[in-house]
């Protein structure tokens, strides 16, 4: 056991946070203070995201879509849009594309019928298609 663990108010393992931080090419060493702060703020972030997602729930179950909704609606969470994409069914996707076409939206090349279910098509718009 480390000394740090015994009197800190953290849940997340510092060692793991440190490993993730060091996976960034610009980071060589991580001192105890920045490590503490990044760990702490990550916990605040999780709490905040969960509380906001909770506002979207109807029953008693927090589901993926509630989180995706928060992510898609908040521009400061833009960095998560490809990590937590809004998931839609193939049918919804087709309808979405049809509406886009009707509007004359040429933001991306229209995909062929056969390939439109590939998630790579949808991820660019924050959407992942599920069957």
């Amino acid at each position: 056991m480390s000394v740090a663990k015994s009197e800190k108010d953290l849940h997340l393992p510092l060692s793991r946070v440190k490993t993730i931080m060091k996976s960034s090419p610009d980071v060589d060493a991580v001192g105890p203070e920045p490590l503490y702060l990044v760990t702490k703020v990550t916990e605040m972030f999780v709490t905040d995201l969960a509380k906001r997602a909770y506002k979207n729930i109807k029953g008693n179950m927090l589901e993926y879509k509630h989180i995706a909704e928060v992510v898609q609606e908040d521009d400061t969470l833009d960095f998560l849009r490809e990590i937590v994409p809004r998931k839609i069914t193939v049918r919804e996707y087709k309808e979405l594309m049809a509406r886009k076409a009707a509007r004359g939206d040429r933001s991306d090349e229209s995909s062929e019928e056969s390939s439109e279910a590939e998630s790579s098509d949808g991820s660019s718009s924050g959407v992942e298609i599920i069957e």
Partner: protein
Amino acid sequence: MAEKLEDLNLPMSVVTRIVKESLPDGVAISKEARTGLAKAASVFVLYVTSAATNIVKNHKRKTLTGPDVLEAMKDIEFDRFVGPLTEALENYKQAVSARKSGAGKKKEEAEEIETIEED
């Protein structure tokens, strides 16, 4: 360094515990929601790290400091965390200095904080 790919993700069990503590009792969290929140948390670590290292680079320094992390929160528009985070940092510093004055050997202590247990 990361030897396995899992090492680059935060443990889902711990993230789920944090989520449960922030929600009213009795709220269930679907498996997919747990995975999503754990992934989001892991990516957030990198996002903050990269914002903080940008500040270090802009100041032509090499070492990442606590104030860099605080400043990074403003850059990525998470200003709302700066207040509570600053407060947490004060408590942390007090705990560290209390430990140092208690144990005398400052140098060894500092190293000990740096060495975090592997779980």
